[in-house]
């Protein structure tokens, strides 16, 4: 079974430029997450999708970050304009959604490393 695919793996941009990251979740997984992991810290949730709807984007800096999942499958996370403090690994994750009383395994991709200079 293919895992969560992300691209690009590495990106270096200058501050005030824009960047976009792509994620393709595991087939059949309705829930998709974008996390930001700054060096030395644990991942922090940016946005959670259920199919093509947003479940939680309370920690997404909406003045510069945007994300979409138009067809309920793959997703794009965009940063415009980038700041130095956006340097981090952007992790995409996916899980089945059951809505029941049992937990689901959340699988992560390899991550997209962003360096803003």
């Amino acid at each position, binding site marked *: 079974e293919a895992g969560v695919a*992300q691209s690009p793996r590495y990106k270096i941009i200058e501050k005030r430029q824009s960047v976009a990251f792509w994620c393709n979740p595991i087939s059949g997984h309705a829930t998709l997450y974008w996390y930001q992991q700054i060096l030395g810290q*644990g*991942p922090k949730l940016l946005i959670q999708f259920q199919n093509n709807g947003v479940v*939680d984007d309370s920690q997404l800096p909406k003045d510069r970050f945007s994300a979409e999942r138009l067809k309920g499958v793959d997703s794009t996370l965009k940063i415009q304009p980038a700041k130095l403090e956006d340097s981090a690994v952007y992790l995409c994750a996916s899980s089945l*959604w059951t809505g029941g*009383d*049992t*937990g689901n395994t959340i699988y*992560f991709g390899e991550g997209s490393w962003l360096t803003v200079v």
Partner: protein
Amino acid sequence: SQELEQSPQSLIVQEGKNLTINCTSSKTLYGLYWYKQKYGEGLIFLMMLQKGGEEKSHEKITAKLDEKKQQSSLHITASQPSHAGIYLCGADIGSNFGNEKLTFGTGTRLTIIP
């Protein structure tokens, strides 16, 4: 303050020795996940615990969730170089079974020395 506290922050262990990593919260943990991360790579799922008192093992790694569901431990027996990496605990603090949203600790960096 962090909702999930991991300890220790780093650990250096001689190959073959046992070790324990802890993850603690002041809130009830409805789903507790352990992941391993190597530098430059994504998170590799290890185990998920849900019920108070639950314990799971995989190869030489055992994870437990206490009865109150506020603390979990990860124990590695007879450590090997392949165990080196960053161990992260993540938890669903909002009882969102089936639609989890994880909060993570800051991680424990494990180094294995020969």
